[in-house]
Structures are given as C-alpha cells and as structure tokens.
C-alpha cells in the first residue's frame, strides 16, 4: 500500500515538452486512470513513476519518500507494458518467475508463489508454452502475473486492454478490477477509452498535451467537466454556446434555459452549457407541460435495443436525447424537451 505523489513534474525531450507541471496525488490502494488522447504524455508519466525516465523538473514521492534518485530496480513498482514485453525465449512459468529468480528468492518459495499466481490468472494449462504460442488475452495475463508475483507497491498498466477484442476486454476489465480490489494495490492505469476509465477507476486524471486538465471521480468528470475539451473527451454530445442572463439562466440558440448558479458565471458572460443525453425528458408536443419546455421536432432516431437516441431539432441546434426504449417516438414528431435546471452544467468560454 503506497501513496504516489507527483509534485510539479515536467518532462522535456530536447526542445519538446511532453509533460508540463503536473501535480497528482494518488491515494494508497486507489485505482487511478490516466485518460487522454494519443501522444498526450500518458506513457511518459508512467515511465517517470517507474524510473525509466527522469523528470526534467519536479519530484516523485512514494509515501512521502522522494524516489527521484532511486534506480528502477529499487523502486519496487510493477509495469504491464502496452505490448506486454514478455520474454520471448522463456516459457510462461519462467516469464512469471523471472522477478523472483533475479532477486534470489529460494526455489521452493518461487515454486509456491508461482503455483498461487498461475492459479489466480488461470494459466495452468499453459505453463510450459512460449509467448509466441499464446493468445492476446493469455499473454496479457502472463504480463500481469509476472508483475504481481513480485508484490510491487505500485502497479502500472499501459493500455493493457488495447490489443484485445471486445469480449475479452470486458472479461479482463472485470478480472483486473477484482484482482486490484482483492490485493488493495495502488494502481495506475493508462487508457484512451473513457468508458473503460469510468468503469475501472476510482479517480480519473484527464491529460491533454502534457497538462493535467482534470482529476476526480468518474461521475465528476462526466457530470461536471471543467472545460469543453474534457466534456468532449468524456463523450458529451450536447454542448451549446450561450450567454448568461442573470446568474440562473442562459440564453442559447434554442431558447433560454434556467440553470443552477455556478461560481464564476456572472451575468453577460459567454459560457457553454452541457446537457447530458440521459438528463433530458422528452414528451410528445400534445402532452401538457410547463411553459419553460423547449419545443422541437424529432429529426432522427437511433435504436440501440435497451435504449434509444433521438436527434431533436430545436431552433438552430440539434439536441440528442437518450432514454429507455420502453416506448418509441416516431421521426418527424413534434416534441417538447423538459430540461431541469440542475441537469445543466456550465463551462467557461
């Protein structure tokens, strides 16, 4: 159980700044996802925590101990690489036992711990195989077992699910989550898939261009993103520019919405309003309702089985509404949208 702190970490490669002044405080036993687009610096961040790369400035602390001068070998971290990095010339068993064997662990202990971990990752039938003879999911479990057997104090995984097919990915996600909770090991998990991050992580750190854009629990990032970029990356589709009228209403391209006052959003300021797809109630136009409803017309319908998306044209804008598909409304239908003030989130700009 180790707490990991990045204090004002920057990393430059020559003239290129890969990481700019990141502060990150990861609690012991927590699972944190680093989320961001390709090239934003996720791998670089992991590599600095592991000691494979030195920060240009700043300090990294494990439990209040500065590890900046600690060699890779002495940090007692674990890392599952993006492409696994298994030793191709060793069997599954030898791969997994490597970390113990180079530390001079007695043979009998290695064999006991090997049996134990192979049981956990369910690789029993493959002990004598070589990496080239394994499937992607099996290789990944070898990589995880190889890392866990040394009982690292911090576990890092660099997009471990990227190379797996959808079904296996779901299985491995549950597997990783269960394992992490059972062992209570501080885990940092890199992904560029926001659904994966939300499903797995206790907290998510969103990184753009080497900057930490937001760090918080999944629901915060989803409901209260600090910027349009974060909202966009978290999959928000209804983001509309507007102007504050007073502190509790915003004028948009499809009418004025009442909102809950947010700090910093003064009368007349330019803002973006985010409406979550599932936070909007849609009613046929003939149903009685309040006057503050937004009128529109269903322009398109996407049916997903359990849920359905409507694209509703309201004035100049298109609003996407998601609801349970217990009933279905038809394309072309006149509707009214009920958008409660507490479901509108405002962002600066």
């Amino acid at each position, binding site marked *: 159980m180790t707490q990991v702190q990045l204090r004002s970490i920057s990393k430059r490669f020559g003239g290129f700044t890969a990481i700019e002044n990141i502060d990150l405080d990861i609690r012991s036993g927590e699972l944190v996802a680093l989320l961001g687009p390709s090239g934003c610096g996720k791998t670089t961040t992991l590599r600095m925590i592991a000691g*494979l790369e030195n920060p240009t400035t700043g300090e990294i602390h494990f439990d209040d101990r500065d590890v900046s001068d600690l060699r890779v*070998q002495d940090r*007692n971290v674990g890392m599952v690489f993006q492409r696994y*990095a298994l030793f191709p010339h060793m069997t599954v068993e030898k791969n997994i036992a490597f970390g113990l064997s180079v530390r001079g662990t007695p043979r009998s202990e290695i064999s006991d711990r090997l049996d134990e971990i192979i049981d956990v990752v369910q690789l029993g039938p493959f002990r004598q195989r*070589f990496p080239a003879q394994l499937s992607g999911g099996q290789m990944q479990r070898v990589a995880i077992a190889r*890392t866990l057997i040394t009982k690292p104090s911090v576990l890092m995984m660099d997009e471990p699910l990227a190379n797996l097919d959808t079904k296996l990915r779901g299985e491995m996600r549950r597997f990783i989550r269960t394992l992490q909770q059972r062992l209570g090991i501080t885990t940092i998990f890199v992904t560029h898939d926001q659904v994966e991050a939300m499903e797995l992580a206790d907290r998510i750190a969103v990184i753009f261009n080497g900057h930490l854009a937001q760090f918080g629990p999944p629901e915060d990032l989803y409901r209260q993103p600090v910027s349009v970029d974060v909202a966009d990356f978290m999959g928000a589709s209804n983001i509309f520019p507007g102007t504050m009228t007073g502190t509790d209403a915003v004028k948009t391209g499809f009418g004025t919405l009442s909102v809950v006052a947010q700090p910093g959003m003064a009368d007349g300021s330019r803002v973006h309003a985010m409406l979550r797809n599932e936070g909007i109630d849609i009613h046929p136009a003939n149903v009685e309702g309040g006057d503050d409803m937004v009128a529109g017309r269903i322009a398109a319908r996407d049916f997903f089985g359990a849920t359905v998306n409507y694209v509703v044209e309201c004035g100049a804008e298109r609003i996407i509404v998601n609801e349970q598909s217990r009933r279905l409304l038809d394309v072309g239908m006149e509707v009214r949208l009920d958008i409660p003030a507490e479901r509108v989130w405002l962002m600066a700009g």
Partner: protein
Amino acid sequence: MRRERLFLALQMTPIMVVLFLLFGGALVLAIVQSLGYAPWFGVNTFPDLSYFRALWSSPSFWQSLGLTMYYATVSTFLALVGGILLALALIKTFPGKTLYKYLYKLPLMIPYTVGIALAVLMLGNGGVLSRFAALFGLIDDPGQFPQILKTHYGWGIIAVYVWKQLPFITLAIYAVLLGIGRETEEAAAILGAKRRTIFFRVTLPQILPGIVSSTLICFAFNVGAFEAPFILGGGFPDTLPVVAWRYFNDADYTLQLQGMATVVSIGLIAGVILFGYLAAYRRFEKRMGRN
C-alpha cells in the same frame, strides 16, 4: 499438381544450370581431382585416397589446421565481443551518434588488401605505432617495437580480421537489437534485474539469431581466407589456404592434386564445424518454441 511442379522446375532450370556449372561443377571437379583424376596432367589413378592419406598423416597438416582454426576462432570471437559491445552502445542515444553510425561502417567498404596494407603501415616494426612509441620514449628505437606481424600468435592477421568483421557483426546485431526494442530490458529492470543479469538472461538470448548468422559468415570466411595469413603470417606452419596455394604454385604441377586434397579438406572441416554449430543452434531454437 505434378504439372505445376514440372513447370516450376522448368522455369528454374536456367539458374540451376548456371549455379551448377559455377559452383557444383567446380566442387565436383575439385573432389575428383583430389581423388586422383587429372588426365590433363597425365595423372589418372581415380579413385585414389593417397593424397588425403599423405596430407592427413603429416603432422604439418594438423599444425596448419590448428593454426587456421586458431586465427578463425580467436578473430571471430574478438569481433563478436567487440560487435556486441558496440551495438549495445549504438542503440543508446548520445551526442554525435549519427556520425559514429557512419564511421564504424567504414572498414566494411575498404577491401581486405587495403586493410592489410594499413596493418603493415601501422603495426609493423618501423610502422606508425612503433615510431610513436619511440617518439614518446616508451621504447628507445622503433626496432624494439614488439613483433605483432609475422608471428605465430598472428596478432596482425587477427587485427585485420577483427578490423573488417567487427563492423559487420555490429551491423547484424544492431539490426536485431533495433527489432527487439528496449521494452523487454526495461521490463526486466523493473522486475529487479541488474544490468549483467539483463544482458545475459534477456538481451543475449534475443540477439542470438544475429550472433549466429554473422559469426557463421565470419568464421567461414576466416577459415578460407588467404591474403592476410599469406602476407602477415609467420611462415611455417602456414594456414591451410596458404598451404594449398603453395601446392598450386609449385613447379611440379602434379602437386596440384595435393592442393585439391587440401582445399577439399578445408571444405570438409569447415562444413562439419558449421553444420554442428547450426545444429546446436537449431536445438536451442526448438527449445525456445520457435520453429
């Protein structure tokens, strides 16, 4: 199916004919000559093992064989160690890397004979090194410079082989290193392995294909090489290719057949060694689960 094969065989006929005439034909000719068939010299005692018998029963043949193997093995080994170290260094980033990457390949483009001339100029008594040594007072006179060329330790010959082949081996291993990337080494470091352990347990097994193929080529070349031992060697005993040359060059042209027996012997011995080496490597590959 049969027709396709036949068609394929027909298509390959021209190249096979050329290959056979160039290599196979010459090989067959060498073998039959070494067995006593050379009517153009007025010799025809085929099949006759006496040339091999004479060769193999003379102690000087075994001395020459020993010397040939010594030069070939030591220089291949030195070039390999140097090549591995250089390739490992080149894979890292350091200032001026681009320049070094061109510089180390220079000997590859310079012919052996030029290398031999350089060795004479640099390493000989009265050569550049000896003069510098004298200039800096390490020795009183250039003539006191230790004998490097024309001795049976053959440092001059080995120096030329290594000078030429180290870049070649470096190139081969560097390419393999680039292919395997740094990640397995980094994974090993994170798992707690020290640098030595990483090299012997992670890097070395992975660059083995490059090591085997490049040393194979160098060793085979060194066994058959002629110029360096001829020019820089110490006289009797000579390496086998030089021995063969002496037979070929003899006024008594019936000794040609003795020369052929020598050449065929070199081929046989080198073949057996290389085959054994490859077989051992195949076994290792199989054990690693590669096919």
